[in-house]
Structure formats: structure tokens, C-alpha cells
């Protein structure tokens, strides 16, 4: 028996196959993972992501605190509501977690962190917050529904409380807006447009049901994984972790080395690794078959996330390999080498294939 979100009973009623995810009982799929995947690429789908952690950090020195805590620079956030993707690093440069930080006011930022890491994240954040006089509040009374797909925003706006609609409708990509106890953000983990709606746990089931009535397809963790991988987005624990730093995890773009004088945790270690040996690349399997995490790459390397891509009808993967400039490698599947071409992710964005097959 794991932890349950406010939507657990709704998932069971809708026929979800439930699996454990980081200690939470979450829906894997509601019948067909592939149909759920296509619904998000072609129309609109929704995911229960209430297991993620929502953490508010407040204080006069909160910006300074986050500039020290995070590898990306919240100094870049000047417009209220603007979001930034960042890693939180150990002094070694290893990744404690990846998260999204929203700038809400000069004294208030909101972090959204992964489910499986939220406890260690909170310990780490609290440990460093004290010195800056920053208060840390983890919410336990909220649910989060990610509605994603080309028609996701329109269908979500139709069911939002009227008072929230104008502000939600005006949101630009990668912005969020807090209204009473709701928080609407134009973000996601699928490579499609959409919203992530944070709302009081008590309102979650009615909102989910209303979205379903507007033709939004419930989708589980299975489709969430194939969608994020097609979109070339990392999964914490697979594609980066405490033993792998951002520069070998395809996340160099999230590390702000400028301004030079900004000291962030992990900076010193990363400075020495800037021309480092490994990189994260995309793979497309040339043969039939399915790439899986931990498969060995020849001559060298390892698949970190692999799956079958429903959009491309091919197997794709993220893999950590030496920086050799190769355009083709082999992946060992059940003892046999299979050719795979190296590509630059994302594989799919806004419903369209971005790589030529």
C-alpha cells in the first residue's frame, strides 16, 4: 500500500492499472498506453502529477538564496510568473534533483520537485535556507493535473473557475499565475502545449471529471514516459542522478556559468569538468526491437532511457557515451549488436517528427 493522491479513487473507477512510483500508487495506463500517447500528440490528455512536490520559499533574501542553491540563475527571472528549469547540485556536481522554479514576487518563489526525491530535496533546501532567513513551506493539501496536447489549453479553460480564466488564457509559454489556492502554469513534460494546474486537493476529482467530459483523455505514467522521451526530456534517476553531473546529462544549457561571480553549489566541481568526457545523446534504433535503460553501447556507453516511440514507430533512447563525434553506434540487445544512429534530441515536438528516419 503506497501513498495515494486525491485522484486515486477516480483512477480506479476509470479502470487504471495502478503501479508503485516512488512510493505512490499511480496509474500506469487506463487500457492502452499507446492510445493515451496519441491523444496527447493529436488532441488532449491529462496526467495526475499530484505526487510531485510543491514548495514555496519566501523571504527578503530568497532570490540570493536560490542563486546559490540552483545551477541555473534565477537572476534571469524578472517578470512575475516566469518559470525556469534548473538542477539542484551537490558540491561534487552530481544532480540532487531537477525542478522548475517560478518567480512570483521579490519575496516569493515556488519550486516544483520530483516525487521520488521530494524528501531529500526538502532536507537539502531547508539546510541551506536557514542562513538566508528563507522560510520553506511544502504543500500537502494540493493536487496537480497536467493537461497536455494541441487542444489542451482550450479544453482546460472551459472547465476552470470563471475567475481564473482570463489570467490563464493570457499565459505565455513557461509562465505561471497564482490565484487564490490555484496555480496555473503553461508548462509540461510532453513536448506539447498545455497547462499544469495545481489546485486544492478537494477540487481535484470534480476538475478531472469535468476535463474528461470535455474529451480530455486520462493518461498514465506509461504515456508520460514515452511522451517525455520523444520530447528529449530527461527523467531523474535514469538520465541524471547524484553520480552524474549536468554536463554529461544533456543539461549544459541549464547551468549558468555567467555571471562569473555567482557562486552556486556545485560550480567549482563543474568548472573542472567543462570539457568532460561523456555526453548524453539521442539514439534511433535502425532495426526492429526496443532500446531499454542499461543496455550496453558498443564501442562504449550505456542507454539511460529507452522505449518504443509511438509517434515514430521506432525505438528511441537517450544514452551516455564518450564524446567521440560518432554518428552511429551499436547497442547490445539480448547479446546481439543492433545498429543505432546518434541524433540530437528532441525526437518529436508539437506532434511532428524532428528527426529524419
Amino acid at each position, binding site marked *: 500500500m503506497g501513498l495515494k493522491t486525491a485522484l486515486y479513487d477516480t483512477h480506479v473507477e476509470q479502470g487504471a492499472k495502478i503501479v508503485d512510483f516512488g512510493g505512490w500508487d499511480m496509474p500506469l*495506463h487506463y487500457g*492502452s*498506453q*499507446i492510445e493515451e500517447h496519441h491523444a496527447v500528440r493529436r488532441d488532449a490528455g491529462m496526467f495526475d502529477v499530484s505526487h510531485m512536490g510543491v514548495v514555496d520559499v519566501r523571504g527578503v533574501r530568497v532570490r540570493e538564496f536560490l542563486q546559490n542553491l540552483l545551477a541555473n540563475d534565477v537572476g534571469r527571472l524578472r517578470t512575475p510568473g516566469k518559470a525556469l528549469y534548473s538542477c539542484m547540485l551537490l558540491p561534487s556536481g552530481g544532480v540532487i534533483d531537477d525542478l522548475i522554479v517560478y518567480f512570483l514576487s521579490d519575496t516569493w518563489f515556488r519550486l516544483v520537485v520530483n516525487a521520488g526525491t521530494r524528501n531529500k530535496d526538502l532536507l537539502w533546501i531547508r539546510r541551506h535556507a536557514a542562513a538566508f532567513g528563507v522560510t520553506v513551506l511544502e504543500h500537502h493539501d494540493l493536487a496537480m493535473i497536467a493537461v497536455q496536447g494541441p487542444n489542451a489549453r482550450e479544453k482546460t479553460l472551459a472547465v476552470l473557475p470563471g475567475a481564473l480564466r482570463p489570467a490563464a488564457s493570457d499565459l505565455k509559454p513557461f509562465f505561471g499565475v497564482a490565484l487564490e489556492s490555484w496555480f496555473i502554469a503553461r508548462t509540461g513534460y510532453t513536448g506539447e502545449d498545455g497547462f499544469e494546474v495545481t489546485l486544492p486537493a478537494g477540487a481535484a476529482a470534480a476538475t478531472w471529471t469535468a476535463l474528461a467530459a470535455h474529451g480530455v483523455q486520462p493518461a498514465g505514467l*506509461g504515456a508520460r514516459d514515452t511522451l517525455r522521451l520523444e520530447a528529449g526530456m530527461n527523467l531523474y534517476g535514469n538520465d541524471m542522478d547524484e553520480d552524474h553531473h549536468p554536463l554529461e546529462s544533456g543539461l549544459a544549457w541549464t547551468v549558468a556559468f555567467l555571471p562569473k561571480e555567482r557562486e552556486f553549489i556545485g560550480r567549482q566541481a563543474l568548472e573542472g569538468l567543462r570539457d568532460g568526457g561523456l555526453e548524453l545523446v539521442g539514439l534511433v534504433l535502425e532495426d526492429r526491437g526496443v532500446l531499454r535503460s542499461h543496455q550496453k553501447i558498443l564501442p562504449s556507453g550505456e542507454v539511460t532511457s529507452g*522505449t518504443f516511440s509511438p509517434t515514430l514507430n521506432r525505438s528511441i533512447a537517450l544514452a551516455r557515451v564518450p564524446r567521440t563525434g560518432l554518428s552511429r553506434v551499436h547497442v547490445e540487445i*539480448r547479446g546481439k549488436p543492433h545498429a543505432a544512429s546518434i541524433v540530437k534530441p528532441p525526437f518529436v515536438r508539437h506532434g511532428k517528427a524532428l528527426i529524419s528516419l
Partner: protein
Amino acid sequence: MSNVPNDLRYTKSHEWVRAASDGSIEVGISDHAQSSLGDLVFVEVPEVGRVLRAGEACAVVESVKAASDVYSPVNGRVTASNAALATQPELLNHEPYTGGWLFRLQPDAPLEGGALMSPADYTKYLAEEA
């Protein structure tokens, strides 16, 4: 409830076996197996002529999330394998007992009841496993 046709026999690893009048057998995976695996996206079947031992891993069925081995229910030689699955792996989900058959075998010895389960026993086995 998963579908357990009455005219087949079953293994503990969730293969089904259909006996033909010429003594050969057809093998696939049960409705329960396909449903547990989820959407199947890749199937590898044994080559015709391959000699198999009972319990030998001889086919692979992969869903989006995981790969699973399929085991030969008896000793025998492969006489046919289902080529349609190369391009339509979803047949395993939609028609596990017909279009989704995996391979045919000529068993070394006539098929006997012992090692394989009757539909009633398999149904009971599924209930115990759940």
C-alpha cells in the same frame, strides 16, 4: 476477467497450446499475459527448423515498458512462425488466441496432459496468482 478458451491447454508461464489433428501444436500467449504486458510493440519468433527443449526461451514479446520471454511448452522442432507479427505486434493484444499465434511445433512425443494445465486449472491458477 480474462478469456480462457476451453479448447486449449496452458502453461504456468502463460503460454497457450492448441493441438492440431496432425499431432503438431500451435503456441501463443494467453489473454491474461497480453493484458498484463500492455501494448505490444515488438515480437521475435523462433526460426523454422529450430529444435526446442521444453522450458527453453524461444520467443520475445516486448511491450512499451518491458520485454518478456516466451518458453517452449514441450520438446520439438519449429515448423512455422507467425510472420505477420513483425509488422503487426498488436495482433497479440487484439487476437491473442487467433491472429496472435507465435509459432507451431512438431513435438518429439505425443502431447500428454501432465505438464500442461486444463482451462479449469489455468483459471484457478490465475485466481491464485492475483
